[in-house]
Structure formats: C-alpha cells, structure tokens
C-alpha cells in the first residue's frame, strides 16, 4: 500500500494555562493513518477532540506527546501546506473583505499568478453559488454563506489533502448534498479528505473510513461497511406488486424461514425530497436570489486531471 498521507502515533495534546499547568487533556494517544484517495471521517461528541486533532495536523497546535507526519513531513514544514486546504470550524474570514477579495487574498498567499487567481475565484464563487453576493463584505454574510466562502477558500490551491472541520454545519440541504458530491468527485480524482461532522447521515454518505473519538480517545475505528453491516438481516425491494402477491410472498417466507417478515413502504429520504423541491422551485423563480443560488457542481479547475 502507498505511504499514508497522514500518520499520527500516540498523539497526545494537553492544553496548559499561562503558567504551564495542565488544564484540559484534549487528546490521548491517538493513532491515525489516512491513505491517499480516502475520505476519512472523525466523529465524536462535542469536546471530544476532533478540531484539536485537525489543528495538530496543520501545525497550528503543538503536540504534547507523540508524532504527526503529514505527506511524510512535519506539520511545521511550510511548503507542505501548499498542497493542503483547510476549512476551520468557524468561518474565519476578514469581515471587511468582499467574497472576491477574500479569495484573491488567499490566492496571493499561495503565490498563484493573477490570471489563475481571477479565474479560480470566479469559478469557485460560482461553484458555491454566491455569484450575486461576490461584491458584498463577508461580515454581512449569513452563517451558511460564510461557510461556503470558507469552503471556496480551502479549495483555491486545488489541494491534494482537504481538512474540513464540520463542512456541512450551517448549510442548507442542497449545500450539504453539493458538498457530498464535491467530496465524492475529489476523492475520485485521488484527493484525500479528512472531515469531521455531527451529521451522521452525511458521514455515512461520503466516508470510507471513520474514527470515533470520545474524551480524546479513539473508541472505534474502521471502514463504514465493516462497522455498520448487520450481517444477519436481509431486505428485499420490489417495484410492482398486488396485495395477493404480497400475501403469497409472506407465506412463502414463513414456510422457508419459520418467521414472519416485516413489510413496509420505503419513504424517500427527506434530503432527496428537499433537493428535488428546491430544484423545481428554482426553475420557476422570477425574483433575484438574496441567498445562494446553485449552478455548477464542480469548479472546472478542480476537474482538470
């Protein structure tokens, strides 16, 4: 197997106060390995150390004990961060800059040239559906809008590794779905994604592997399939049926297996319903949007091989 993108051994973080006394043990002996092309999920209740782990990976915090290597380097290595995109937990943006200025600013920090900055900015703003708000200061943005700009800012360097702290928090269902599609598309191109989320349905949709944290310790880890498969039960689905046929099937199952099967009508997920309803309404709308408006699924520069 190829070298892991992220590798931590016995990673421990204890927050200290001004005088160096122990205040909070936030993370204890965490071992993580994330491989290229994987979508990796960090789960856990509030305060379990997810954000702390991400900040340790980025070198923003220093480990108390243990080692972190990211793309084979120390997290303090500046040049490695050329290939990383990070979406912080809170939308951490300069309030007075407009959406466009924000992306230009980050583009300049990456040393991109002017044409790249311009084209990537407009593609990303289009992708996150904020074209009509591009010239407004981000301080005025709603939480979800700021989150979208945060995501755009994390993608401006076309990163190989994306670290997303609760990417779907505060987003509308259409935005959530879009992010999940985006992550899928990026993973297909061989990019690695590490994300944390409280929305388990989202995690289940996109993640290949997860680690469950509790009080700073990993209490479960593995592939989603491995963790979630209920190996005894089976489920049949049929499209067309009459009451008589259903009755006949029930009898057959009772005879074969010796137990009554449960029969129910599947509902579509509320998310699917919402996404479809909004798609229909957007087609019919004749007023200009004040919030977000979705257009492209993936900024073209992110799709380039």
């Amino acid at each position, binding site marked *: 197997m190829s070298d892991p993108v992220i590798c931590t051994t016995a990673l421990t973080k204890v927050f200290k106060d*001004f005088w160096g006394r122990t205040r909070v043990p936030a993370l204890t002996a965490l071992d993580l390995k994330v491989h290229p092309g994987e979508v990796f999920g960090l789960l856990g209740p509030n305060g379990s150390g997810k954000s702390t782990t991400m*900040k340790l990976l*980025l*070198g*923003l*915090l*220093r480990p108390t004990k243990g080692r972190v290597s990211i793309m084979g380097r120390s997290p303090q290595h*500046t*040049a*490695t*961060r*050329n290939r*990383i995109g*990070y979406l*912080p937990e*809170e939308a*951490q*943006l*300069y309030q*007075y*800059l407009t959406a466009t200025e924000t992306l230009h*600013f*980050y583009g*300049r*920090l*990456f*040393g991109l040239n002017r044409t790249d900055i311009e084209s990537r900015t407009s593609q990303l703003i289009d992708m996150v559906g904020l074209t009509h708000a591009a010239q407004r200061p981000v301080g005025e943005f709603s939480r979800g809008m700021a989150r979208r700009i945060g995501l755009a*800012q994390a993608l401006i*360097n076309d990163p190989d590794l994306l670290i997303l702290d609760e990417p779907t928090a505060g987003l509308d269902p259409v935005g959530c779905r879009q992010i999940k599609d985006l992550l899928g598309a990026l993973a297909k191109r061989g990019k690695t994604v590490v994300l944390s989320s409280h929305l388990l349905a989202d995690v289940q949709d996109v993640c290949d592997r997860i680690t469950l944290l509790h009080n700073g310790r990993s209490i479960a880890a593995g592939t989603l399939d491995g963790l979630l498969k209920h190996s005894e039960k089976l489920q049949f689905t049929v499209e067309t049926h009459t009451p008589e046929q259903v009755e006949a099937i029930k009898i057959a199952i009772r005879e074969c297996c010796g137990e009554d099967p449960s029969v129910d009508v599947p509902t579509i997920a509320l998310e699917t319903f919402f996404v479809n309803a909004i798609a229909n309404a957007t087609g019919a709308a004749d007023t200009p949007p004040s919030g977000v408006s979705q257009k492209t699924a993936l900024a073209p520069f992110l799709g380039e091989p």
Partner: protein
Amino acid sequence: MRKLRQLWTLAALTAAETLRQPVCLLLTMSCVVLTILVPLTTAHNFGEEGRLARDSGLAFHLMFGLFLGGYAACAALTRERESGTAAAVLSKPVDRSVFFAAKFLGITGVVLVFSTSATLATLLAQRVALKYASDTGHLLDGLTAGLAMGSPVIACGVGAWANFRHRRAFQSTAMATLPLLLAVVAVGCGCFTRAGGWAPYHPQLQWQIVPASLLVAMGLAMLGAIALTLAVRLSLVPTVSTCFVILLLGLASDYVFGQSAGHAPLANLLYALTPNWQHFWVADAIAGGGVVSGTYMLRCALYAFLYTSGILCLGIVAFQHAEVS
C-alpha cells in the same frame, strides 16, 4: 519573492484593518484638534514665541501615538488570534515569521499616517501661536487656525461622502484624507500674512519641528514592536497595561537606572534594556532656535532600528512556538 509578496499582502491587510478601527480615527482627530487648540486658548509663551504650541504638539504626538501604536499592535495580533483569522492564514504556506513581520509593517504604516497628521498639526499650531510684530502687535494667526481646525471636519465629510457614494469605510477615508488636507493648509497658508492679507509666498513654518517629529515617530515604531511582542503571550488589556509601564520606565530610565549605571552591573543591564524615550525627545534642544543635527538623527535612527529589530526577533521566536487556535 513569494515571501515578499505574502509580506506585502498581509501588511496591507493589517494596515487596512487597523485604519478601520474607530479608535484610530478618534485618537488622530483628538491629537490634531488639541494641538491646534493649545495656541488658541493659551497666551503664555514660555519665553519663546510658539514654544508652548510646539512643545505640546510634540507631546500630544508622543502620547496619542503611544496609545495608538500600542493599541493597534496588540489589536492586530490579539484580534486575529481570537477571531481565528490567524489560524486560517497560518494554515496556508505562510511562515510565522512573515506573518509577524507583516503585522509590524502594517501597524507601522498606520503610525506613519498618524505621525504625518500630528507633525503637520504641530507645524501649523506653531505658526498660529501668538507672536509679536511691530506693525501688528501681539497677533494670533486666525486664518491658519480656522483652516487647520476645518481640516478634521472636512476629512470627516469626505469620509461620509465616500461611504455614501462608494461604500468605502468612513474611518479609513477620513484617516487618509486628514494629512492631505493639513498638508494643503500648510502649503496654502504661505500665501497669507499672519494678519490674513495676501503676501508673497512665505510659509513661516518652523522646519525644525520635522526632525523632532521624525524622532517621535521612531520612538512610536519601537513601542509598536514591543506591544506586538507582548501580544504574542498576553491579551489586549494586559498588553496595553504592560506597554504603559514600559513607557513610564523608559521615560524615567535616566533617573531610575541612569544614576547608578556605571557602578551596579544590574542597573547597567536594565538601563540598556529599557527603551530610552528621552533620546527621541528633542523639544528642549530646539527651544530658542537650536537645531537637531544630522548625526544625532542618524544615531537615534540606528538605536531605534537595532532596538526594534531585537524586539521583533524575540517576538518572532516567541510566535514560532505559540499555539494558534
């Protein structure tokens, strides 16, 4: 090359964000207004015409500047750390040393804007002050005073207009307009006599104020560096308070350590370490027509440069190990 570009980008952003702080505008306006008010309200001259106006102008420049520089420095770092923008920037390929240096450059830029206004105000105040001439008797330069006092008002007007028309930040436009207007007044008042009539061009400004103000500005840059370095570990209020203590120590260092320096090694060390603001205070030297020599300016500039670099290096080392979250 790339680091330079990052440095420039971050410094420009810091300056822009600082200029938007209402406190900066408030301090600058107060400094200018008070400086020009002094010659209008006091008839006393301390034995030399315009001396009180000049001395208090320089003193306001120093005091308001210290507050402005100290506040701007720790706000620039503390605010960014608390709002998390520092974390967002440092998760990009930005060296911490570049980030720190950019903060310093940004606030120095703002201090420079402030110092320009304060210097021009002091020049004008000195011209306004009561002076005796055989043909006019004791006379205040009312026209210059009016124009100078009008500048802050017009600057605010321009700020409001730019905000209304172009959605520019009121504070930063007003901050940037003020020195321009004061400069226009300083140049323009040369066309008038002190009594207000037309006359062949003769500015009647005391140019010795410029090097004196420049020295004050150097002292301000030094304090900015100290405040920034403190802000790595401390939050806003402790930083400002500590700056204030250092300021007082530096003002009194000649009395506190200077007398025993030479005998006691500890006093020697402390004397060398505390910033000595007295070097930057030449108001007494230029009283009665004294001049600030070029060599003195150079020596002070060297002192300020070395001291600032040393402090900044300390700050960078501390910041390298600081946690940003």
